[in-house]
């Protein structure tokens, strides 16, 4: 279990982390969603004790000092910057890290083989990392943190600059780890990743958490209405009649198409169906975390 209380970190005049508090239960995946510079990486660094907070506390599995050796042994961190030795092969990188964690050589050999398999690098394990593609390096970067089978995993934007194939492999790996009951904190500025992987998401901006909840609740609270675009088989001749079946007064008409917003899309469509007009196609764009962020901050995630 991870518990963070009133964490505060300031660099000269910039407040990087501002009164951040959250709790992640064992086996849950917690997402920190925010744009670049929101304070995600600083939070991760504070969690693993690389930097000290100005105030506030961090508790990992009930231990309040993340710099303690046995606490670190239970912690796996996938840093945003590639933390692998390009001059060494994938196998040698893993072997070195395994030795640092004091893994027995027999266990180490089997863990290295497993991790190389997970990363899809078994066939190229002897090659120097410098010869790998960006995606391969990212995959190796991730499995280096899984080698010692940590109970807590902190992933700091692990998919930055990764090709779709590698991204999928990383997602699948994280999903497998989730099933193993590990506690995960995942930072990203891609809302799709947070939606797919995280049980709970914290919206972070300018070092401050704006809200924490599961994705559905966040969208419900801050996402705003869904956008509906309905195309009919014939041109709409009686606009006033249609308006009676739609709860929203802001309807846009364009030949045989109408567009409107609603917080209950399925109910609205069912009601519209009663108008007697025959649908040709329906597009429902429900609110997502991007809308949540936009509504909370007035900015887009990738602004």
């Amino acid at each position: 279990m991870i518990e963070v209380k009133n964490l505060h970190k300031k660099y000269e005049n910039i407040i990087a982390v501002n009164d951040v508090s959250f709790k992640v239960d064992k086996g849950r995946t917690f997402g920190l969603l925010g744009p670049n510079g929101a304070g995600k990486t600083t939070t991760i660094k504070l969690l693993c004790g690389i930097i000290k907070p100005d105030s506030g506390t961090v508790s990992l599995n009930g231990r309040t000092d993340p710099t303690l050796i046995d606490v670190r042994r239970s912690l796996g961190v996938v840093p945003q910057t590639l933390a692998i030795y390009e001059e060494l092969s994938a196998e040698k990188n893993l072997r070195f890290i395994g030795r640092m964690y004091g893994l027995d050589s027999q266990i180490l050999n089997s863990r290295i083989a497993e991790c190389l398999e997970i990363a899809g690098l078994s066939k190229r394990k002897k090659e120097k990392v410098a010869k790998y593609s960006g995606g391969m390096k990212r995959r190796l970067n991730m499995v280096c943190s899984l080698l010692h089978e940590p109970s807590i995993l902190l992933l700091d934007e692990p998919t930055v600059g990764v090709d779709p194939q590698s991204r999928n492999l990383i997602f699948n790996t994280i999903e497998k780890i989730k099933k193993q009951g590990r506690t995960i904190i995942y930072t990203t500025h891609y809302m799709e990743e947070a939606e797919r992987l995280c049980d709970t998401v914290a919206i972070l901006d300018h070092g401050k958490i704006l809200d924490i909840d599961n994705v559905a609740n966040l969208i419900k609270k801050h996402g705003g209405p869904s956008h509906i675009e309905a195309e009919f088989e014939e041109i709409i001749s009686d606009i006033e009649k249609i308006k009676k079946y739609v709860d929203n007064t802001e309807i846009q008409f364009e030949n045989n198409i109408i567009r409107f917003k609603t917080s209950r899309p399925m109910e609205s469509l069912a009601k519209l169906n009663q108008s007697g007009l025959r649908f040709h196609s329906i597009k429902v764009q429900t609110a997502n975390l991007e809308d949540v962020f936009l509504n909370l901050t007035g900015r887009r995630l990738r602004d």
Partner: protein
Amino acid sequence: MKKVFFLAAKDIRVLMSDRGNIFWVLGFPLIFAFFFGAIYSDAGDGPSGMKIAVVDEDNSSFSTSYISKLEESDALTVIHLERDQALEQVRKSKIAAAVIIKKGMGDGFEAIFNRDEPKIEIAADPSRKMESGYLQGLLAKAQFEALSGNFTDKNWMQDQVSQWREEIEEANDIDTKDANLYLDLFDSYDNFFNDINDQDLKMGFDGDILNFSQTNLSRESDGPLTPFQITFPQAILWGILGCAATFAISIVKERTSGTFQRLLIGPIGKAHILAGKGAACFITCSFIMCIQYIGAKLFFKMPVGNLSFFVLAYFCTIFCFVGLMMLISTLGRTEQSAGGAGWAIIMIMAMLGGGMMPLYFMPVWLRPFSNFSPVKWGIYALEGAIWRNFSLIEMSTPCLILLAIGLASFLLGVYNLHRQED
């Protein structure tokens, strides 16, 4: 301790994976030692004789014999040239002197001992009086040695006697009584040369006419015995400097690439990480030093005065530069800035400390500044062990200075690192 070893092993692997690094820490210092050592020792040929040219204008059997006697001398290196070429070489200081054997040198005693018209001419720079005087002695010795060959030649001697007889008989200004005395003497010579067998005649003039015995006494050492004793400490320092700079850059590279972060979040303390870096640098320096030492012994025949002091000096020097490496690695936040700052500092330290040229080649006013360079103390300590014959007390001064610089730099580097990481 095990983890420190793993860290060090990893760093050495990373270092050795780059051929450029291997050259700077191993190849360059060896080239440096060999190149400058060879220069200081006159191309490494060991002691050689005075280089002279001979010009044989006589081309007689006597001149040939005379030149061969000169060539046999260890004190001379003889080349054969034409007169103009020989004079030109003297003018350009390429040779010490030119010895010109004029026509008529082989004509007999009269030609050899002719005071009015000498048959041997020495062309040399008048400012090189000592060399010229030395050469005249060697020429006279060779002349007597060549003559000793003629004395044992019965026919040559009989020709000489016959020539002298004719001169006396034709001379009008010699008293008859005195002339008869000479003629009687020449008769005795004739009888002597007719009666004596060749072997007995040779025995009479066997060996050198002028010779000296020499006792070889090596002087007591108050300086290096070979030039490599000067260049070897410099080469060690260059190896250590190259190693320190390379490791300093590797620390910055770790910090910028994220691997340092991975180490920091691992189950090891910062002290382990820094000790690992220091150990890697230390082990690499030791390896380089061993290679250099073997090379110096095998190829350059370099003697080491006191091996235990040498090891002491070497440990203190490496400790100092491992500390400096730590400090240099915190001087820049990027590889480029740390690398630039590192090499700039190293070059200044090497220039001031006698790493590029021996301190006694430096202007006198500049020498006191060398005290601020750890390179000077490193070289001084190594020289103390190799050829200065330092006592333990004398060794302690440079060694303690090196340890103090190393410790202060290491602590400052660690402090900087902590400050930068927070």
